[in-house]
């Protein structure tokens, strides 16, 4: 597959934006201006970036508890995402959802999810809508190796295949379910193989190589738009950070470090430099632009008002 230089640089920018966003979140979390349960996406940026690059604005994404990367890759709205993490009225979900519940339906972001495996059935609904209306839209569900052990996983694979729904199942096999390594939670490590047993075309890619993810996702999405039914993509990656901002975890000595050579930003940057698509100064320029963008996002969040507890929409669920 020929990926244009423009798209490659766009993806490099998104990888860097997601990484620096998460680093900023960590910093603000430690300072106390970001609160609650924070699940960082560091190390997995290539999955959200590569998959969302293959989508159109009106395609649906159903995200997870570790969803900042999906939200950024789909919407690029770092200001409202940052404000949401602070619980502010200017936040993406007006401070009602927080880190795990980022919604921007106008850009196809149909929410994160606090329940592992909880968003998988919902994504079938996005695909069902598209099929019902006869549009070429597709629906993407991100989930992890942990979610693959939930009942909703098997139910949804069967139903999607049965109804021939245009849904792309993206398993981010990040090696950990909360603090439990995949080897201690999963008897059969080939998650894509499970999808094949339900009749879905499934492939496995290096989830840290954004070009590989983009290529696989583009192919699957193109086939789904041609009404080929659901598809499955297992992306092998690694969660660098602990499960959650407040629960430190332990790793085998040297394990985390061994993934530093597989850093998604590094992999793409090396490729682009080798083929002459970017020079170090281009990357520095991107870094500077991203840093300014994130300063602006943090300032936007800090200055946004708190939600008003007396406002009717904050006290009642009726629409």
């Amino acid at each position, binding site marked *: 597959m020929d990926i244009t230089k423009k798209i490659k640089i766009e993806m490099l920018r998104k990888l860097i934006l997601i990484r620096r966003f998460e680093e900023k979140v960590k910093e603000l979390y430690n300072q106390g201006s970001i609160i609650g349960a924070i699940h960082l996406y560091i190390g997995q940026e290539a999955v959200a970036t590569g998959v969302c690059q293959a989508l159109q604005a009106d395609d649906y994404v159903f995200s997870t508890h570790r969803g900042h990367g999906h939200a950024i890759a789909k919407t690029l709205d770092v200001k409202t995402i940052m404000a949401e993490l602070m619980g502010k009225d200017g936040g993406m979900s007006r401070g009602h959802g927080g880190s795990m519940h980022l919604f921007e339906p106008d850009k196809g972001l149909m929410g994160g999810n606090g329940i592992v495996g909880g968003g998988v*059935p919902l994504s079938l609904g996005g*695909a069902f809508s598209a099929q019902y209306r006869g549009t070429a839209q597709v629906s993407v569900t991100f989930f992890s190796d942990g979610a693959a052990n939930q009942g*909703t996983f098997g139910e949804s694979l069967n139903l999607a295949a049965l109804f021939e729904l245009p849904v792309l199942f993206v398993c981010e096999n990040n090696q950990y379910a909360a603090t439990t390594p995949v080897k201690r939670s999963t008897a059969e490590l080939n998650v894509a193989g499970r999808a094949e047993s339900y009749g879905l075309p499934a492939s496995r890619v290096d989830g840290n190589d954004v070009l590989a993810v983009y290529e696989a996702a583009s192919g699957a999405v193109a086939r789904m738009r041609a009404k080929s039914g659901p598809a499955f993509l297992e992306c092998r990656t690694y969660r660098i950070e602990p499960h959650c901002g407040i629960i430190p975890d332990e790793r085998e000595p040297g394990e985390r470090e061994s993934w530093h050579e597989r850093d998604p930003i590094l992999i793409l940057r090396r490729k682009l430099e080798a083929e002459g698509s970017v020079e170090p100064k281009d990357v520095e320029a991107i870094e500077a632009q991203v840093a300014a963008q994130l300063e602006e996002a943090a300032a936007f969040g800090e200055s946004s008002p708190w939600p008003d507890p007396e406002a009717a929409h904050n006290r009642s669920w009726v629409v």
Partner: protein
Amino acid sequence: MAKMQEKRTIWYKTAINEAMLEEMERDERVFVIGEDVDIFGGVFKITKGLVEKFGNRRVRGTPISEAAFIGLAAGAAMTGLRPIVEIMYVDFALVAMDQLINQAASSCYMSGGKVRLPLVFRGQYGVGTREAAQHSRNFESWLVNTPGIKVVMPSTAYDAKGLLKSAIRDDNPVLYLENRVLYTQKEEVPRGEWLVPLGVAALRREGADITVVATGYAVHKALAAAASLAGRIDVEVVDPRTLDPLDMETILKSVEKTSALLVVQEGVVKAGFAAEVIRRVAEEGFDLLDYPPVALGAWDVPVPFSPVLEDAAIPQSEDIVRTIQEVLGKKR
């Protein structure tokens, strides 16, 4: 209007079927999904004829995968459709409680109102049919305790149709509970279309001595109790029809008149809907009461199978009669 005047007799279950058929004709976004709802017309035949009229695109039979198809419906609602989900027995929704509560009922608020979930969960429930604990659950109290979903419990064919049509047009998730004992109850209703708004109670019988608030099939038990006490005790029966949002105005107006309150439900009484009605009356109209209010509901057990046990565990008309007399014997 002339057509509306013309009466005919239909079953409660036919009323539900008519509501779906009319709403599907009116709004292309409405579709039905659930186990056996297509070719078979549903295990209780509530969706009979719909697949023939609207095809499989809009009437979708599913595998026995409640979490997947309830979640699918929630996702479809979030993305512009108006699903009606049939849950064969409400008990079966318990394998999909995450999809029902964490997802469907919560997503509108969690999104700051950015996503809307106009969807109806229709499920049948009921006791007295000797189907044991896992096919006899009364589910309403749980869902009244859940923010983000309305709870509707029709007790007549007229309301079954009018409330379902309103539920389908509502932009919130609605749990619409059908009583299986009432399915084949016949009733005279108008021809044509009518709506019953959500959140408005019905005064089923006027009386001066005591207010009995009852839900679902308990409405009919309360009316039987009232009839048997007629001439001695003048019983007023209020049917909330919608449990959440609750029409407190009608309930308080009735209690103001009678100064006595009994709330009856067929579900477990502990921490249930009846207790909630009493809380609201205590907080909003304590001085209206001259008698201590009482909640009557099922024993604190999974519904037993043996007819002798089941009938004892669930409040019957005779229990309502006896409790009314007890309440009125305790004037403050």
